[in-house]
């Protein structure tokens, strides 16, 4: 029983981070149709900013969430307004936009990573924050990891409510389902897509801030998380925010179950479950 609890909680702890990262990408990929391979770079920016604020100015990492998130939102919003909007305007079809924006996202990845290496240098960084054990029904877990789970779920839920309850959220959902009709209904589609891109970047940066509390951070950490996020978004079903959220936890749990028996196969299991699921349900968990 204790073993079971251990595995389940470990899976949730990891799944929470994956869910948050994937939700961000889901907005960019599922709604704005940008396969944003540079998603991980926003995670890295959030993580290194949080590290710097903590180690230089002593700012609480949780407070950094409120700094990194809005800053990344602004950055993402501007990038969409200046870059992806132009690409959308000059691309002849949605398919061409998807391929062109993928190339542009690679360009962004290269630029951001190079700038980060110049600003922060190559060293691996880390800090200790809330590194003490908490007893959860007999199973021990680090307080910082539990805090990351709490905040991941909180941010995820808050965003879900935002989508479900507010006008802006409705516009985003409409755009996700059918951009053309949404445009006809008077939704300013460019504005909504830029918002989605901004929110996606904000979630990535906040996830990065949370990651920095538990894991080492450095300038080239991003791509690994971006890859996981892409897998989760497709696993959950394109355009489905709840799907990405659930998909993140599914991946986390699968990982922790396999890690218990054979850590060497954890990542193989991620991709194995992803492939099996798509074979069984070709549009992902919550896809239409």
């Amino acid at each position, binding site marked *: 029983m204790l073993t079971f609890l251990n595995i389940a909680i470990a899976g949730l702890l990891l799944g929470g981070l994956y869910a948050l990262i994937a939700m961000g990408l889901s907005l960019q990929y599922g709604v704005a149709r940008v396969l944003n391979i540079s998603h991980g770079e926003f995670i890295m920016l959030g993580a290194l900013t949080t590290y710097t604020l903590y180690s230089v100015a002593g700012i609480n990492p949780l407070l950094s969430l409120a700094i990194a998130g809005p800053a990344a939102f602004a950055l993402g919003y501007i990038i969409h307004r200046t*870059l992806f909007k132009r*690409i959308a305007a000059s691309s002849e079809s949605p398919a061409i936009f998807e391929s062109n924006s993928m190339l542009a996202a*690679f360009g*962004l990845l290269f630029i951001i990573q190079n700038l980060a290496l110049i600003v922060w240098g190559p060293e691996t960084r880390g800090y200790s924050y809330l590194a003490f054990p908490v007893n959860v029904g007999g199973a021990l877990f680090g307080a910082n990891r539990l805090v990351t789970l709490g905040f991941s779920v909180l941010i995820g839920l808050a965003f879900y409510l935002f989508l479900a309850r507010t006008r802006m959220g409705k516009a985003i959902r409409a755009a996700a389902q059918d951009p053309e009709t949404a445009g006809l209904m008077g939704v300013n589609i460019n504005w909504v897509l830029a918002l989605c891109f901004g929110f996606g970047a904000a979630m990535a940066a906040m996830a990065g801030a949370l990651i920095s509390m538990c894991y080492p951070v450095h300038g080239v950490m991003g791509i690994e998380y971006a890859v996981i996020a892409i897998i989760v978004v497709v696993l959950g079903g394109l355009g489905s925010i709840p799907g990405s959220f659930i998909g993140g936890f599914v991946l986390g749990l699968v990982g922790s179950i396999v890690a218990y028996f054979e850590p*060497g196969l954890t990542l193989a299991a*991620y991709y194995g479950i992803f492939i099996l699921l798509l074979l069984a349900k070709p549009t992902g968990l919550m896809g239409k």
Partner: protein
Amino acid sequence: MSIDRVLSKLWVPALLLIVLVLLATFTRYASAYTVILVTSILMYVVLTVSWSIFSGPTGYISLASAAFFGVGIYTAALLGTKLPLPIVILIGGLASSCLAFLVGALTLRLKGTYFAIFTFGLVELIKHLLLWYEIRMTGTRGRFVIVVDNNTIYQVMLAIFVLLLLTAYLVRRSRWGLALKSIGENEQAAAHMGVNVTLVKVSTFALSAVFMGAAGAIMATRWTYIDPYIAFNYFLSFMPVLMAIFGGLGHSFGPILGAAVFAYLEEVLITRFPYYYMLLFGIILLVVIVYLPNGLMGLVQTWRTRRLERQHATA
């Protein structure tokens, strides 16, 4: 027919012939390093053109190139010392092709992005399973590959390239090519028109993988040491896609031009501006995509249209 018209008809095949002759006799006069560099550029061209045989007309974006390339690499690592080189390359191509056939058959129901990311996941799955197997079962991670001299590698790569060009040309010209295009335009309509959609898709996918596998098998001999991370590097899945977009997806020669320019540009940047390579390369990608939404071939076409217009004006 005026001399002008004859010339305008002949210059293209003539130029093509000249280029091929130049490339074929390259090792006689080019410097040793130029041969190595062109081999590497040809590798990217082969990957990109193979990729576009299937993904170009059908619109199915495959991210499995690294898997097919990697199978070729491992074939060379495992069999390189035991069998003659041409056999190893052949086996590399065929093994990749078998894998592609399997993947193609598995992914029939997947569309669009789901297909793309499925193929991407597959590369990662193979990499991690292989890594686990190598460590648990063989107790190693990396393997040494037999060393082959650089001119031979170049000639083999050139041979693969020429065969690939011929194949791509024949496929496009044939009914098969038409069937592929009709799948890309509307898969259901194609099926109604009597196209065996499954057979055409799977066999084209398998065909395109032959060349990637063969290229991997010969390239491994240049790299001399490989492991699952080196062999199944997912950047090599993205590269053909990026290079094809860079060159212009809508044009038959976009992939060749895109891969050649992209690879050469990268070489210039990593050697001339090593500390700012990524920054400059990223900026170039953004500029190209914003100002040349149809890739480099879009630019070539614009020039051509302008020239024709000018001719009209003077005529």
